[in-house]
């Protein structure tokens, strides 16, 4: 058959996975492919998946690092279920990814890595390239290592090891050719990244180009693909991960309050990147503080909030467990602050690099005493920006700590973010009571005299004359805030703090429903399951199923109309990456018995296909 290499097959969307050893630079390769596609104008959604060990034994199944990207000419909401193309740098990568691959999909393997030793490390009894087990796929055997070495032959100053490190760029170049991407963004990235090491920069650029030319000149690849730019709303876009978007949202909120941003945190996967994103922003008066542990981080945030800064901390489940005592102090002090929990597989240290939604009950109820705290959850990477800003706004409005429940999946995966004009973002109103001249006089200042509308207490900051006051974690009397063990005071303050949180529902839009306002089935979700479920519900609706979808972005307080929405459907399905925590809360809150938990405990995001199948089952079971 002749090879029409300038002929493109048009695809609406495609899912590609790059997989290799954790030392192979697959995250980088994936990110570069994503950027090139994003700049080209596709809608994109990515899913990095890497081992918890920094260096798992090379070549083993445990050491496989993958990066999946979905690019589309449509608005897409997930990184996609099944890759159409897999680039496998070694046998282990092939073995781990193959079960996910689309039937008939394309596989590019680095044959140089298919040595007996590597096959053994990947637990292959026979070479899959030779035993027919890849029948049904379009397999391209490419000796990536030797080709890269050959391409870099002229660079005599580099060691073979240094040359081999460029093979991911060779693979990237090849992928660029197959999917008709331009090299420029990656070329300028390389130049910038290796500005201090010109030979390395040159080597990577050569590898990238040679990969591209390899596609063009050899007749191995019969098929090339084209995905047209997506028709996204007009505007300027960039790619953001959830953690980047969170950091941007926090800085924006601080600027919109006219406050320094204090971020006190202790490193933990997958939250650390928020700290990494904020630390270089000192020129925004961002004061990052790497605390000695999560308890200290939480304490520092309370101190900073008392001092009048926009105070934020971020962590993951195990760190949040440590923070809980100090979170309760913050609740008693009634100071505004934001606490971010980027959830990961638990319990205990669990699965640091895998995603889960297992901390909902922890943030709602995991503290001693009556301890109400508002909880917001972003639905996608870009939404982290809006949620971060909202959390800051609500914290200041009600003078209360607010929790953001993000997820490892959202934190690391990325999608295009429609860059807003900062001038269009509303300022956040902050009120500090003014100083008083009778500083040394007798008129007492009442630190717990509340705003009638919001029930917030005044945010009087040290340095203001005449407002000197003492607050603490002991039970206190209303208005004066003096220590009090009076049972009526105790009860009244519990009610006030709860009511204050409940009233935040006034400051948040009512719940919306996607699909019929009443009927048979409502699928109710929160957090990062949004994309897969919305896509599955859309598909089901187009097949005529009577199904609606509601997605919660605020989990405490619930939107005012949530109860009445739930009563409009015969059945309610609650898919969650836990054993049914939201479902449990909804049953308890609304006393409903038609709530069906749909738990997923794989510590991986839902796939569209599995949710759709669940919906099919529900309707065929009637």
């Amino acid at each position, binding site marked *: 058959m002749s090879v029409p290499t300038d002929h493109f097959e048009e695809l609406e969307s495609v899912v590609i996975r790059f997989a290799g050893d954790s030392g192979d630079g697959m995250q980088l390769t994936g990110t570069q492919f994503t950027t090139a596609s994003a700049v080209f104008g596709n809608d994109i959604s990515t899913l990095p998946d890497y081992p918890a060990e920094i260096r798992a034994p090379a070549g083993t199944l445990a050491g496989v690092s993958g990066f999946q990207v979905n690019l589309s000419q449509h608005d897409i909401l997930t990184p996609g279920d099944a890759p159409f193309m897999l680039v496998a740098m070694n046998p282990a990568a092939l073995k781990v990814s193959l079960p996910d691959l689309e039937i008939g999909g394309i596989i590019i393997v680095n044959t140089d890595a298919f040595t007996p030793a590597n096959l053994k490390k990947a637990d292959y009894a026979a070479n899959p390239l030779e035993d027919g087990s890849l029948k049904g796929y379009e397999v391209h055997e490419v000796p990536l290592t030797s080709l890269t070495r050959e391409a870099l032959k002229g660079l005599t100053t580099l060691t073979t090891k240094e040359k081999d490190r460029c093979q991911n760029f060779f693979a990237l170049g090849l992928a660029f050719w197959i999917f008709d991407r331009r090299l420029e963004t990656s070329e300028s990235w390389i130049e910038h990244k290796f500005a201090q090491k010109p030979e390395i920069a040159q080597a990577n650029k050569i590898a990238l180009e040679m990969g591209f030319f390899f596609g063009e000149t050899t007749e191995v690849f019969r098929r090339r693909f084209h995905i047209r730019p*997506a028709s996204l709303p007009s505007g300027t*876009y960039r*790619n953001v991960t959830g953690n980047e978007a969170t950091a941007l949202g926090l800085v924006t909120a601080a600027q919109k309050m006219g406050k320094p941003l204090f971020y006190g945190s202790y490193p933990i996967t997958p939250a650390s990147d928020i700290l990494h994103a904020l630390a270089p922003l*000192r020129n925004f008066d961002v004061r990052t503080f790497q605390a000695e542990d999560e308890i200290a981080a939480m304490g520092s945030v309370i*101190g900073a909030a008392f001092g009048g800064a926009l105070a934020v901390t971020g962590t993951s489940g195990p760190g949040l467990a440590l923070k809980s005592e100090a979170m309760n102090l913050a609740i008693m002090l009634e100071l505004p602050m934001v606490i971010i929990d980027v959830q990961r597989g638990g319990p205990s240290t669990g699965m640091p690099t895998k995603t889960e939604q297992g901390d909902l009950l922890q943030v709602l109820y995991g503290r001693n005493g009556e301890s109400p705290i508002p909880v917001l959850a972003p639905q996608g990477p870009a939404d982290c920006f809006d949620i971060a800003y909202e959390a800051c706004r609500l914290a200041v409005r009600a003078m209360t700590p607010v929790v953001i429940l993000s997820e490892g999946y959202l934190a690391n995966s990325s999608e295009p973010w429609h860059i807003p004009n900062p001038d269009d973002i509303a300022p956040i109103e902050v009120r500090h009571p003014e100083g008083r001249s009778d500083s*040394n006089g007798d008129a007492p200042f009442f630190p717990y005299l509340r705003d009638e509308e919001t029930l917030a207490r005044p945010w009087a900051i040290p340095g*203001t004359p005449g407002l000197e006051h003492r607050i603490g974690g002991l039970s206190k009397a209303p208005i004066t805030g003096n220590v009090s063990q009076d049972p009526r005071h105790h009860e009244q303050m519990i009610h006030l703090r709860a009511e204050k949180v409940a009233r935040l529902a006034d400051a948040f839009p009512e719940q919306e429903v996607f699909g019929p306002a009443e009927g048979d089935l409502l699928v109710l979700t929160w957090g990062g399951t949004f994309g897969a479920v919305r896509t599955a519900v859309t598909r089901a609706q187009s097949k005529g199923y009577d199904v609606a979808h509601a997605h919660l972005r605020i989990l405490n307080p619930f939107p005012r109309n949530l109860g009445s929405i739930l009563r409009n459907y015969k059945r309610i399905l609650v898919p969650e990456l836990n054993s049914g925590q939201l479902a449990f809360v909804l049953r308890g809150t609304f006393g409903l018995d038609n709530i069906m938990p749909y738990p997923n405990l794989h510590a991986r995001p839902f796939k569209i296909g599995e949710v759709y199948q669940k919906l099919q089952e529900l309707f065929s079971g009637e």
Partner: protein
Amino acid sequence: MTETISLELTRKDFVSDQTVRWCPGCGDYSILAQMQKVLPELGIPKEKIVFISGIGCSSRFPYYMNTYGIHSIHGRAPTLASGLAAANPDLNIWVVTGDGDAMSIGGNHLIHAMRRNVDLKILLFNNRIYGLTKGQYSPTSRKGKKTKSSPMGSIEQPLNPLTLALSAEATFVARAMDTDTVHLGEVLRAAAAHEGTSFVEIYQDCVIFNPNEWAGIDDRRTRPDHVIYLEHDKPLIFGKNNDKGVRLNGFKPEVVELGGEFSEKDLIVHDETSQELAYILAHMEHPNYPPPMGVIRQVRKPTYTEELMGQVRMAQERKGVGDLQKLYHAADVWTV
């Protein structure tokens, strides 16, 4: 900046409307009284003063001061104070803590606040017992100490607050006693004047659960023979009649009588800047040695907030004051 109304402050300005509720005879009273006496002399506007404490009898302190304050949670006061200092570097922040609060549950935070040199004045009220929880041994209790939780005697090696502070690179380390009020006042003044972390161990009497802890050194009449008052650049002389001193015998300090074999010239001369000497002094414990009182070490190093705000200023000079528009676009962008 809001300017202050009046700096003519008196003791009364620092007395809050709350009734002080420590046991009668508790050493905490005299520390409170000294604090309320010293603060008006410092020339610091009252509204800039903040007291932060943890949990314990001593940690009730902020309620009794008519300043800003937080009574926080057990052991964590240094963390709140550090965040507050970073948010608001202008403030004059005092941390009040007990030996259990600071060194048991809060040991980690204590050392980190000191090593960062956050501008805090940390006062550790050391009664070598848990007061609030009614008399268990603490991390500073002596080995063999019999308490409700150590009926056969504590088998744990006690921590020495001063050497801990020195190891954590505290830039100001001092000691005083609740009963020696004049000297306590002097130490508080010196601590207040220091920029960076001031760490002051205050021997404090828990008359209920550990009444005899300071026997031998707390009696005003015999004290001069049993403690040594440090002064920078002065030889280590003590005794009612200035007839005793401390010299170095090899690496070991040794108490000597003056007048006979030894004279002033043989004695150690106090040097607040010497970390080595500080360790020697901090290890001199009653009853084998006269425990030193006063400033053991004092050096000036950049504080945490000086460095932090220095970076903010430098970043703003280099990159310009943060601009959201630029920040949002600092990546590969595309336009649809």
